[in-house]
């Protein structure tokens, strides 16, 4: 079977502000750097996929305004709103189907909006929005269920966050680069239920671009940085049922199963992971959904340092979404981070195979789409 490689990538940012740059300026800089990093020219680029959402773009049908900066004019240009993981899944499909050899996936974040209104625009209008249901509220409901049904304590949730901040402190690109202690995390401002501000992601601003190429191009140019050997997608229904089911993260489990099947591997063959966990609850339950441990045993993976930067299965060497979370560009950045782990550019780990678990939960947990990619090392 033909393979798809990540041949180049670049970021701009990420910080709490854009540093006077506009979204198109940041995207242009990252896009040009990524093409150069991949050793491909704009003329060679077959197609561009933009990933973002209207509310975080500040404009509707906004890809039209970003075509030029993304290098997409007079080329097939597609917008995907489910996040960077889904966009990479679609780009991979496009290459494997023979529709393209070189695809660039781009995203940028520069719009600052009022969270008193914006954060609930993605929720259902009749039965959820009138009560302020938002992305943070949905994480709060899950965190409460996690405490009540699995006995997880707020201290344990804080230790998950502290583990991520410790990794982020070593990542030059991270937005939050301070190794916050457990006490600092617990003492931060309370937002929803047991979750404090430091147990929830910041809004990061910047841009991320990733260039995928076919195996044929990778062999000709010798530019493969990592290989995408498996992809999977799964979408949940939009409504609330048993919270225990949501804690099981069935869509993540299904997406991972599809990706593992395509790659011909299991979680036992994976060395590290980047997981889009927007709260500590989601990171712990992801360990279980991915098969890293049995249900209820995830806390011990953190307590024993298994998923820490120096552990046997590091999770979020980038610091994860708690450290860096651009709403539009987050998934692409996490894919870049996963590739960097394989390339030996992020963390001190010798990893041959890294899992990326992305989703669109920056918009809230109900109706989520999970995207899982298996990345591998090896020469073209």
């Amino acid at each position, binding site marked *: 079977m033909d393979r798809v490689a990540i041949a180049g990538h670049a970021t701009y940012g990420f910080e709490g502000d854009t540093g*006077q740059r506009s979204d198109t300026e940041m995207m242009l800089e990252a896009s040009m750097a990524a093409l150069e990093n991949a050793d491909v020219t704009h003329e060679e680029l077959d197609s561009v996929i933009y990933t973002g959402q209207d509310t975080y773009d500040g404009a509707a049908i906004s890809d039209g305004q970003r075509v030029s900066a993304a290098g997409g004019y007079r080329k097939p240009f597609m917008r995907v709103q489910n996040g960077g993981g889904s966009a990479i899944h679609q780009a991979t499909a496009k290459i494997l189907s023979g529709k393209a050899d070189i695809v660039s996936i781009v995203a940028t974040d520069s719009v600052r909006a009022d969270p008193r*209104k914006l954060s609930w625009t993605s929720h259902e209008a*009749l039965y959820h929005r009138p009560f302020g249901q*938002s992305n943070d509220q949905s994480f709060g409901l899950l965190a*409460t269920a996690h405490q009540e049904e699995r006995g997880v304590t707020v201290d344990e949730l804080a230790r998950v966050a502290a583990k991520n901040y410790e990794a982020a402190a070593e990542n030059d690109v991270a937005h939050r680069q301070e190794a916050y202690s457990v006490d600092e995390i617990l003492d931060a401002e309370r937002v929803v239920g047991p979750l404090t501000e430091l147990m929830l992601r910041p809004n990061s601003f910047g841009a991320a671009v990733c260039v995928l190429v076919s195996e044929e191009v990778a062999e000709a140019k010798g530019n493969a940085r990592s290989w995408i050997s498996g992809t999977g997608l799964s979408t949940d229904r939009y409504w609330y049922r048993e919270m225990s089911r949501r804690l099981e993260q069935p869509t993540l489990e299904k997406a991972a199963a599809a990706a593992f099947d395509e790659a011909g591997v299991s979680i036992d063959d994976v060395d590290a992971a980047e997981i889009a966990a927007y709260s500590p609850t989601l990171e712990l339950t992801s360990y279980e959904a991915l098969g890293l441990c049995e249900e209820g045993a995830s806390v011990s993976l953190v307590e024993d340092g298994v998923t820490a930067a120096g552990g046997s299965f590091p999770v979020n060497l980038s610091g994860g979404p708690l450290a860096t979370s651009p709403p539009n560009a987050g998934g692409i950045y996490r894919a870049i981070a996963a590739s960097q782990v394989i390339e030996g550019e992020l963390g001190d780990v010798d990893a041959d195979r890294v899992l990326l678990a992305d989703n669109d939960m920056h918009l809230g947990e109900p109706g989520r789409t999970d995207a899982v990619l298996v990345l591998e090392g090896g020469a073209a």
Partner: protein
Amino acid sequence: MADEPDPSVQTGDVNPEYKYPFHWDLDFSLNIGEDNRKFFDAIEDKKLLGKRCPECGATFVPPQSVCVECYVETDEWVEVEQRGIVESYTACFFEFENLPEPPYITAAIRIDDSDICLLHFIDDIEYDDHYELVEKLHKGTEVEPVWADEREGHIRDISHWRPVE
């Protein structure tokens, strides 16, 4: 809240930091469909209705036009008991426009034997400290609706839910 945009700033103004403020001021309307209309008509009369799947028998409150498990249209209306069970809840310490002063409780409530939950406020809880508020509820707490005096066919015709004594 850090860096709140000022809604009074108009699109024509550029602030000293060269950020260009703008806002969307759009009214949307949504066709709520026959099922929701029937539910809200009933709620105005202080009744709670659900809809049942003809194949698996699952009841959905609020009503759903399709059973996702069976992928068939639901066809039987039932009036359900005005009791609910808290599936999960969270205290919000964050201020939203047009919502109660924080902290307030939002809960996923399973009404009667519904197969899905309804989100709503839970109030009438006595507490001293804000953080103590979240310890007053648990998964499985039984709650009942408190109806608004004036109703207009809206989900907030139920003012809130309260724990059953």
